[in-house]
């Protein structure tokens, strides 16, 4: 029989053994276990998301015919506007192609647009992530940019069989090379200012001293297209404050982000068509 003192300490001895076994476990096994446990719970998340879609469908069925007719008229107006934008876009693309050929420039990165439903939002002070309902089955890749109508949503960080995890632009782990709209000089953007009762904000660093921004005269911040997978010109947010950094060489400030990021139900993943370009 074990001495009484050891018997009392047995729970901690067991924990020590588990800890030791964990430390000695090869990384491949840990990665495999993580993926396995994620896939175990994935059906719960996805089923829940489909149930929400069904709920929305049935609540939409309750709309009257008058409401639907009104919505149809609004949609017709939007379609006309989009048709015009499409023509302009085609023309611009052909101009770009012509210039690329004339100047012998390398082609711009091209993407496939993959719309995906948001299955789960997980916004805390530690991290800001969401799970989308598409994964390897739709060719989603790790690092792919995720966007919505208001600009950048985030970046795909984990891809599973039929779900993917997106690290949001509001997350403290999210960093991106950006630029002030109309400028070519790059600045550094980082998320992470997520108060409980204020809309999300990010921070911006290495802003040149000749750029000014205030709450009443904010500067639009967009992706720079440098050092990453994000194409240039996508909206990040608005720089609302700028003040000199501690070294006095640059400015740092706050970026106000889109409030809709917290209620997104559908996003678009930009799947690179030539991943080797990135």
């Amino acid at each position: 029989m074990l001495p009484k003192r050891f018997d009392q300490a047995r729970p901690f001895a067991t924990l020590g053994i588990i800890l030791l076994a964990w430390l000695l476990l090869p990384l491949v096994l840990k990665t495999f276990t993580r993926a396995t446990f994620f896939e175990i719970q994935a059906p719960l998340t996805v089923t829940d998301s489909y149930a929400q879609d069904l709920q929305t469908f049935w609540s939409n069925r309750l709309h009257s015919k008058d409401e639907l007719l009104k919505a149809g008229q609004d949609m017709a107006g939007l379609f006309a506007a989009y048709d015009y934008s499409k023509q302009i876009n085609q023309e611009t693309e052909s101009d770009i192609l012509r210039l690329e050929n004339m100047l012998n420039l390398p082609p711009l990165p091209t993407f496939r647009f993959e719309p995906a439903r948001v299955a789960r939002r997980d916004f805390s002070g530690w991290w800001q992530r969401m799970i989308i309902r598409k994964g390897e089955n739709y060719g989603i890749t790790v690092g792919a940019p995720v966007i919505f109508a208001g600009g950048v949503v985030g970046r795909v960080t984990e891809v599973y069989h039929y779900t993917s995890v997106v690290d949001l632009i509001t997350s403290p782990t999210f960093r991106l090379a950006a630029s002030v709209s109309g400028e070519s000089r790059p600045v550094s953007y980082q998320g992470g200012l997520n108060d409980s009762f204020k809309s999300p904000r990010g921070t911006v660093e290495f802003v040149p001293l000749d750029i000014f921004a205030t709450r009443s005269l904010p500067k639009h911040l967009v992706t720079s297209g440098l050092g990453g997978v994000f194409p240039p010109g996508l909206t990040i947010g608005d720089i609302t404050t700028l003040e000199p950094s501690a070294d006095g060489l640059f400015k740092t400030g706050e970026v106000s982000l889109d409030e809709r990021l917290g209620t997104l139900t559908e996003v678009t993943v930009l799947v690179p068509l030539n991943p080797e370009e990135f």
Partner: protein
Amino acid sequence: MRRVDPRWFIVFLANLLLWWLVSTANHYLARFSFLWIDYCSIHLYVGGLFGVYSALRLDSKQGWIVISLTGLILDSLEPVPFGTHVILLGLVHATLLYGRRRFPREGAIFGIVVALFANLFLVIALSFLMVGTNPRPGEAWLRIFVDLLASQFVLLVITPWFQALQERAMEMARIHPTTGRRVAF
């Protein structure tokens, strides 16, 4: 023939149910309006509750199985180093196992107190681990504090229900949680 002991499975399923309910709540609490406040965002964390029943009612071996599996599920879902929850929940579990003989472990009030303290420990430990990446840790702590208050309040409300759920599941399976023997309720 050796009988299969399903206690760990019952408690693990209950933990999975709780995780699903809380993450569904977090999905909707990511952004909402409340009274005159247009923008609210709250994240509930109830990790402390996962370890209460397994440490206070199950035997040591079954408890360790439940804690390990629950920890692995949480680790697979959150961007923490894999194994963090296994170790943190394991530490809570070991501490409770060490002292459980001295306490009225079948009482609901004691369960609530344990859940609240365990949750507080887990939130603080996770915060120290994660807050370093934030560009302004001071503001992050403020958000974590608000989330912690909300989580503790939710824990206060749901712990008696969750304990009763696990107890009832054991009754339905006609198994005594500590001994694993078949019992007639």
